[in-house]
Structures are given as C-alpha cells and as structure tokens.
C-alpha cells in the first residue's frame, strides 16, 4: 500500500510537471499608455553554465550590478522608466541545454534581449531561435559563427576574435629578438580558428609560425606536447583559445619541466590563483598576457568600483566575470543611445552605426568584419591591458586603446573595420 501511495505522489508530480512549467506567471504585457510615472520592468534573458566558474562568476556579477543599476534609476526610454529584470537559466554548456534555455526565455518569458552568455555551443544553438524571433543578443563566446553574416540580431561583445593582433607589436617592442613561434591550441573550433588568425597576425609582423599543435580539449597530461615543442625549438609560445584555468597552468608546468626558456604570449587573462596552484612561479617567466582592467597600476574609476563592490559582496576577488560583463554595459548603452526597447529598431541602428560603451573592463567599440564578409557592425574591439611576468611578479606592461586595437586588426586582417 505504501508503495502505491508513494508511486501515486510520484506519478502526479511527474504528470503535473509539464503543466507546472507551463503555468509560470504570465509575462507582463507592456501596456501602451504613454510615459506614466510608474516604473516598468524590462525582462532581459541570460543563459550560463552553472557547472564552471565562468558561469558562476558571471551570474554573481549580474546579481551584483543589475540591482545596483536599478537602484541608481534604471533605464529611461522616451521618458518611461524601466527596471531591468535579468532571468538566468542554466545552459549546461551544451547545445541542447542552451537551446532549451533560450526556447524558454524567448517563448515563455518573452524576453526581447539576451545578454552575457558565455559558451559558444549554447550561444550558437540558441541563434536558430533568437534570430527568427528578432531577439537582440549581446554575447561572449569565441566562435566565428556568432558573427556570421546571416545573423542580423547578434553581437559578439567579447574580444577573443580581436585581441590577437594587438599583442604582436607589444611583443616586438619587449622581445625584439624573438623570431619563431609555436601555437598550442585546444582541438576545437575556437582553438582551430584562433590559431589560424594568430598565424596571420604573426606573419604580418614578420614572426614565423613553425607549427600549430592541437591537443584534445580535456587534456591534462601536456608532457607529450612539451616534448614535441622542445624538438621544434621556438622562441615564442602562444596559446590561442586555451582555457584560462588550471589547464593553462599545466601547459606551463610541462614546458618548464621540458626545459623551455623562451617567451610566452597569451591573448587572454589567466586566472592566476588557479594557474599558480598547479605550476611554480618560475615556469611563467616572460609571459605577456592580458591583465584584468581592475588590477593595473592606475585602474579607471569604473573598474575600481566594480572590484570594491565585488569584494564587499562576495569577499574573495575573482576577475573571471570581466570578459563577459561588458555585454550588459553595451546593452544599456544601446538602449540609451537609440531610445527604444524595440529590438528591431535597436538592431537596425547598431548594425548601421555601431556603438561605443564603457565597462569595468574598459572601452569597447563595435566593429565590422569585412575579412569574414560581414559588413555590419557585429564584433567588438576593446581596450586591452597587458601584464608581463618578470622575476616572479606579474607586472603591468601597458594599455592598448580600443582604437589602437582596431587599427592593429585592420593591418593584420585587412579591410576597413570602421
């Protein structure tokens, strides 16, 4: 009898689940009454992986800055005040998970804007929903498919695709004798695409790429690769598309153990806490990489405040969210600039005129990608801060402004990006 009772409860729960999902509070339809004094709510969607620190940190960041933004007055569009309500779902870092989450955001919660997504797989899977539904997407992700010409409503606000070229002039200045380079990249779409871009950018400044080596994505044992790299004898090691956590550290450790003593460059921001947990400091000597805008010698006001707020709210500082959070600031700037909450109007304006915004990660500008046959403003060049690991210390090396980054990209890949 008990079994049957338990079963019935279970069965009812299961049977009711589709209905319960369906019976979420109905979306508040925006009333058409003009400029009332009451504050309206603007729903904005987001999907993040809840199983890795990129997703968790970005979630924390949104939960920190959005309430503060609303408190400070929120958005004002045509005299109407809006508070932003961010709805975050788990996308499990997979295509199927991302698709389900985006379906829910677009069809159930009726959001018109999606921001701050992290993983390429869920973003690309969601495009098949957001594009036909005219949902404006400001997202991270390194995949070139995000800025493919067939997309009209999607903007990449992370700098993965545009931060390779600005690095090389800096390298040349600091290490003029370095001539040959090996790329070590994950064997996935991002790694392949960035390694190819990287080779192009390096060639434009006269550095010879000896070989691009690809490792399976979840590799932990880099000793075989280090052995191979040592037999090639490069002056420079580059890691386009690498994941910033312990895996990055394991690469340094393996190279150090194999006896590599040259320069390392990396167009991303290493998570030093995680990296130094697995590899000795000596292994990171001569690394030039992107430094969080919050950690440079004289950080901008916005960056200082962001870090202080984070520490006040969560205790330990973590810079991982800095790469993804510009999407929020770009979104706010776009709404303010166009003075509309209609995604089609905003997209039409942005695609034709571009956009500039300030975020804790520095200034960002939308650019065209003629090299990818996309003549709409769709990708992002941003100001980049670089650090150098010297004598066991990670020190600020210099900043490249968004405009300089744009110019360096035009030189390396060709075409007018403005």
């Amino acid at each position, binding site marked *: 009898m008990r079994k049957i009772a338990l*079963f019935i409860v279970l069965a009812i729960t299961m049977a009711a689940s589709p209905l319960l999902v369906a019976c979420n509070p109905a979306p508040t339809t925006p009333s058409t009454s003009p400029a009332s004094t009451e504050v309206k709510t603007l729903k904005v969607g987001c999907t993040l992986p*809840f199983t890795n620190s990129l997703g968790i940190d970005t979630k924390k960041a949104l939960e920190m800055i959005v309430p503060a933004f609303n408190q400070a007055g929120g958005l004002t569009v045509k005299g109407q005040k809006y508070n932003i309500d961010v709805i975050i779902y788990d996308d499990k870092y997979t295509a199927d998970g991302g698709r389900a989450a985006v*379906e829910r955001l677009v069809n*159930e919660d009726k959001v018109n804007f999606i921001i701050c997504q992290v993983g390429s797989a869920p973003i690309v899977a969601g495009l098949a929903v957001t594009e036909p539904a005219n949902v404006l997407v400001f997202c991270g992700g390194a*995949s070139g498919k995000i800025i493919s010409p*067939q997309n009209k409503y999607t903007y990449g606000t992370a700098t993965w695709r545009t931060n390779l070229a600005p690095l090389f002039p800096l390298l040349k200045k600091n290490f003029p004798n370095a001539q040959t380079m090996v790329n070590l990249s994950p064997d996935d779409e991002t790694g392949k695409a960035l390694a190819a871009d990287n080779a192009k950018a390096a060639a434009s400044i006269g550095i010879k790429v000896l070989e691009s080596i690809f490792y399976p994505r979840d590799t932990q044992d880099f000793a075989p690769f280090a052995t191979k790299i040592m037999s090639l004898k490069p002056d420079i090691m580059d890691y386009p598309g690498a994941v910033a956590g312990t895996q990055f550290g394991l690469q340094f450790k393996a190279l150090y153990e194999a006896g590599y003593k040259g320069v390392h460059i990396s167009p991303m921001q290493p998570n030093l806490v995680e990296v130094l947990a697995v590899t000795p400091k000596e292994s990171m000597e001569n690394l030039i990489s992107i430094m969080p805008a919050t950690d440079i010698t004289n950080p901008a006001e916005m960056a200082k405040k962001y870090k202080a707020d984070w520490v006040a709210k969560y205790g330990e500082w973590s810079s991982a969210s800095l790469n993804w959070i510009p999407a929020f600031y770009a979104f706010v700037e776009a709404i303010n600039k166009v003075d509309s909450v209609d995604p089609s109007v905003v997209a039409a304006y942005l695609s034709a005129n571009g956009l500039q915004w300030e975020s804790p990660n520095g200034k960002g500008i939308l650019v065209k990608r003629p090299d990818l046959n996309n003549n709409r403003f769709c990708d992002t060049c941003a100001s980049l801060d670089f650090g150098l690991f010297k004598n066991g210390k990670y020190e600020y090396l210099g900043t490249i402004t968004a405009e300089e980054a744009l110019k360096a990209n035009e030189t390396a890949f060709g075409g007018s990006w403005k």
Partner: protein
Amino acid sequence: MKLPNNGANHKTNRYKLLAIIIAVAALVVLPFCIESGYIKHLIIMACIGTILGMTFSMLYSAGLITLGAAAFYAVGAYTSTVLVMYAGLSFWVALPLTVMISAIMALGFGALFVRNAGVAFVIISLIFAQVIVIAIGQAEFLGGWGGIIGIPRPDSLGPVEFATKHDFYYLILAFLLLVVVVYTALYSSRIGRAWRAIKLSPNLAGTLGINAYRYRLLAYVIGSTTAAVAGCFYAHYFQNITPGAFSGWLSIYVQLYAVLGGLEFYILGPAIGAVIMTFVPEYLRVVKEIEPIITGILLLIIILFFPGGILGTIRNSANVSFEGFDARVKKIKASLTGKR
C-alpha cells in the same frame, strides 16, 4: 511479458484499440492545446528521446545493451545535412538516402560488434559513439568541432511549410507513429519471438535453430537506422549541429528513458521515460544547482523501489485492483442469477 496478439480475449483487444485511437487523437490535437513554443520544443525533444529510447529497447529485447544510440543519431544528422547542404538535395530525397547509408554502415559495423555480447558489446557501443564524435570533430568538411549552422528546414510538402513548431511536431509525430507501427509488428512477428528467446538464453535459442548472431545483427541494423532517422529530423529542426551534442553521455540518458518507463514495455516505456526525463529537469530549474542531485535520487528511487519501472508498477497495482473488481462483478452476477 504478455504477448499482445494472443487473441484469446477479444474484449481486451477492443479496449486496447479504443485506447490507441484515443491516444493518437490526443497526440494529434495536443499542439492546439498548448500555446507556448517552449513547451512545444520540449515535447518535440521528448518525441526524439522516445524514438531513441525505443531503439535501445529493441536491442534490449534481443539481449543486447547498447550505449551507442548517439552514434547513429549523429550519423543520421550529419549524413542528411551533407546531402542537403553540399549535394543540394531536397530533405525528402535525403531522408531515404540517409536511411540507406546508415543501414549499410550499421550492417558493416554491426557485423563486427555484435559478435561480442554482454559487457564487451556495452563498452564497444559506447566507445564507437565516442569515435564517431571525435571523427566528426576532426573532419574539417563536416565543420569540425564547431559544427554546421544554417541547415535548411525541410522543403514544404504541399501546404505544409515547416516554418513553425506545429509542423515539426507533426513531422516527428509521423516518424514516431511509423516507428511504433513497425516495431509493434516486429515484436509480434517471428523475429520478435526469436529476439526474446535469444535474450532468455542464447544457447537455448541456438538449439531451437535460431541464429543468435543474425537476429542480433538485424536488431542492431533496425535500431541504428531508426536512430539515424531521429538524427535526420534533429538536424533540420535545430538547424545547427555540433559533434558535442552527440557525446557518449546522451546514450546513457537514452537508456535511462527505457529503464524509467519500464523495461518490459518496449514501446510505451521509453515514451514515458523520455517525457519524464525531458520535463522533470526543466521543472527542477527552480532548484538550480541541486537539480542533477534530485534527478539522480529520483532515478535511484525508481530503480531500487519500483522494479519494472513506472509502467510496471502501474500494471501491478492495476492488476490487483482489476482482480478485485472482477471478483466483485462475478459476485454481483452470481447473486443476480441466484435471485432469478
């Protein structure tokens, strides 16, 4: 396992027919009752899951446990995509071609794999699914790890344009019903009986003149081809595919569908399991981070305390009450006749 076609009880069969008609009718009108595109998406995914689950059940009915459902799901998705996008064929031409190509592939690989039953087959099927994923990831012309985007929708079929989830739902429903009809026919035929005999004891089946190898190979080919059809639909419904979507974990979920619903129910079991496994995690989005733990505990509860899965439990409790009901009816009848 009661055979459905014993024909001894015409009344039961008539009720069964009625139930089937009602169920199909309900499935046909279902999308009109649901407004949300999100729920429709989940229902479509559950239908795909059901088809995959049924392929697992078919192999299980022949005593083979496969963890490779994702392998031919991926083969179907990519074959059809290549045929449509590179060869410029219509979806309706690519579909039968996909079926043919995957059947030939399944025959070739199956001939090698099916020789090992038991644990070895389980692991080989799992590894094969991984091999397919890695091979696609390495193949540049298949888009590598980044996959392919912008896969066209199926060409319109008369007035049906496949622009909305409605149309896709009816397409997958048609596939599903077709699979159900074919599988039911197979299970009640000589082939299905041979499979069950092999599952019970391969040696005994051998002495009865049943060639276990051939019958298992047949199950493998049919199952794989069905999975390929599901993959074909998936590619054109999602309109973009990546190798990551077909990883080995998917296959493990697929067998959960069958186990949850009830292993003895080759058709309905996977359907119930797929619906639950699609909707419950979505419902559990409310609890966010602990969702996988709750799903895991639910799974363990069902495996440990409800032998025979959900349908098995329903049948057992229903049998008990039906027996009571029948007894009461007899009593009343007896008393009535007695009075007369």
